[in-house]
């Protein structure tokens, strides 16, 4: 069986095979190898997701119970001011972190790609924050942004006594204080991915652009960036997943304060599930998070992977 399969495959389209191999059994061994992963993904991700969604319609407290409560949890969720603050913060944080991470990551990568001296050193320095956990990052930036210890105190001690910079203690701008820490932590990785993408661009293209007299910046925007599309998609997915799950950074930096001004949905879920011992409410909130991700992801995936296949 295996032998005939091989020969027919080797013979190519010229020699018509006696029997078309069944598609399901093609690469059988690799499919068997992937089976555990597929099972884990289905049971854990899909199964637990369904379980969560089902329990979000119950009045579960500390322990999951199937006491049907209809849409009560959702009604309460959408009448809670804290939830509106959370999604507002996530929107601002998400949009800005997406734009700035890509922008800063690309610019840094492009600068490093100009064959600077000591590239290795810079690359290490810029990637280094990524090695720190969000909790450590959060604590470090809590200190840096603390008006009595950090930047404000340093600038004031230099003579500018009227200088004020305390984003973490101002409810209107606290989310930007968290954004700064997130950018500091996250851009390094994106820069490395971008740098790898830039290195993948053929030297000949640069030469051709030079012969044609196209300015460098134009070569970047019109030639290089369109060529790096897959790299941008990878970066986008990485950034998006880090945005949705932002939690520990907030906990370490502000604990949701001041006055709940820096709450995020993931923290709302945690607070509801364990702080308030109200699982149903937490599940309802996490179901809404899943829904919003799905609303963005499904049309995008359809555009990206659906339709005709790209070469």
């Amino acid at each position, binding site marked *: 069986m295996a032998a005939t399969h091989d020969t027919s495959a080797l013979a190519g389209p010229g020699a018509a095979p006696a029997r078309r191999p069944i598609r399901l059994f093609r690469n059988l061994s690799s499919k068997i190898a992937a089976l555990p992963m597929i099972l884990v993904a289905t049971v854990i991700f899909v199964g637990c997701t369904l379980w969560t969604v089902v329990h979000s319609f119950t009045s579960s407290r*500390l*322990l999951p119970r199937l006491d049907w409560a209809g849409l009560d949890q959702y009604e309460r969720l959408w009448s809670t001011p804290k939830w509106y603050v959370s999604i507002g913060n996530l929107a601002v944080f998400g949009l800005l972190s997406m734009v700035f991470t890509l922008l800063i990551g690309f610019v840094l990568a492009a600068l490093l790609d100009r064959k600077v001296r000591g590239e290795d050193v810079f690359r290490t320095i810029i990637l280094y924050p990524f090695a720190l956990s969000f909790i450590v990052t959060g604590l470090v930036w809590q200190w840096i942004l603390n008006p009595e210890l950090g930047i404000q105190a340093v600038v004031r001690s230099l003579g500018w006594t009227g200088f004020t910079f305390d984003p973490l*203690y101002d409810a209107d701008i606290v989310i930007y204080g968290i954004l700064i820490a997130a950018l500091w932590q996250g851009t390094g990785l994106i820069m490395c991915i971008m740098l790898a993408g830039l290195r993948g661009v053929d030297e000949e293209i640069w030469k051709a652009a030079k012969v044609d007299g196209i300015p460098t910046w134009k070569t970047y925007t019109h030639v290089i960036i369109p060529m790096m599309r897959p790299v941008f998609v990878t970066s986008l997915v990485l950034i998006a997943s880090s945005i949705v799950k932002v939690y520990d950074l907030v906990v370490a930096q502000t*604990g949701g304060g*001041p006055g709940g001004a820096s709450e995020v949905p993931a923290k709302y879920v945690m607070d509801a599930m364990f*702080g*308030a011992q*109200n699982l149903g409410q937490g599940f309802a909130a996490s179901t809404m998070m899943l829904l919003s991700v799905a609303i963005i992801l499904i049309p995008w995936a359809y555009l990206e992977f659906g339709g005709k296949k790209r070469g």
Partner: protein
Amino acid sequence: MRLTARLMGASALCAAMAATSAAAVELEVTHWWTSGGEAAAVAKFAEALNATGTHTWVDGAIAGGGDTARPIMISRILGGDPMDAFQFNHGRQAEELIEAGLMLDLTDVAEANGWKDLVNPPDLLDACTYEGRIYCVPVNIHSWQWMWLSNKAYEDAGLPVPTNWQEFMDSADELQAAGKIPLALGGQPWQSAGAFQVMATAIAGTDAWLKVFRDKDSEAVMGPEFTQVFESAAQAREFTRGSNVQDWNQATNLVITDAAGGQIMGDWAQGEFALAGEVAGTDYSCLPGLGMSDVISTGGDAFYFPAQDDPEVTAAQKELAQLMISPEVQVSFNAAKGSLPVRGDVNLEAVNDCTRKGLDILASGNIIPATEQLLSPDTAQQVNDLMTEFWASSDMSAADAQQRFADIIASAD
């Protein structure tokens, strides 16, 4: 698969051997006592247990306060990897864990040692009791209704130290003009909620307070007593500006270092003053009930013991429970913690002014239950969220906050 099964079998065998060969049991105890005074207090438990010579205390402190620690503890217990003992505020926090049969029943130890007669006030033990069985051991009495004042801060500003809330509010402007933060308040939500309910007991009085917190009467929230509380809180929040700290002990530290005039905080703050070498009466003053009403709440901490399969561990857990409530440990622990002992029969000779005031109020019976005993965690969290928003906000009016508070109380369970 077979390999995993074999490995699991082997590790189970190892675990079984370890359990049988060791006569002593290592008891892992989780708690959130991490500030200086608290750590000193919990060390007394550890010393007492280690001094028995058979069991060892394995410290599992979780930093960040109860709001951070409780989720971790609960998820460990629900996840089937329980610690041997853990600290909770007694009341309704562990209700469902007990219902689900995850907690060790301590009734036999309690009966053998007569806890019912020696725990004072008795409602502390009632809070540990569920359907007639006892599931936790109360270790201390904490009351929220205290205000701590820095004598030096007032001296620096050339003002007399206030003797009640009204005087404090009247002189707060002048204190602020002298460069001090009149009222220190940390950023953790429970601190705002606590400060508010202390003001409520003092300003609205015990009856109105009980109507709201115990009877969940939302009409009472809209009544004149609570209107006054909300208005006073709206004024007080202006005096908290500048206390850019998160943890309660950092806020207490502002008072200790004389950067702030005062702080509304439970009597656990006294542990911090003691650790800093401050003397009650000369370095700091205390106002129980904000100097307006001699009523304190009797909340506190209790230890729960998750049910374990190993009978040796269970025996050790029960030993630890009895040890925690024994007279010597009660005295040494509570002296370090700044709290009051749960036994009416221990002699506290060397207590300072403030603790003496607390003991006197306790003896006179002017006590109310703690909010943890009255509100479910769900409701408490909603109150916390509202209060932290209200105290940090500069544009949420007292009337808005009052309305939202009434809504929460109306839907409380």
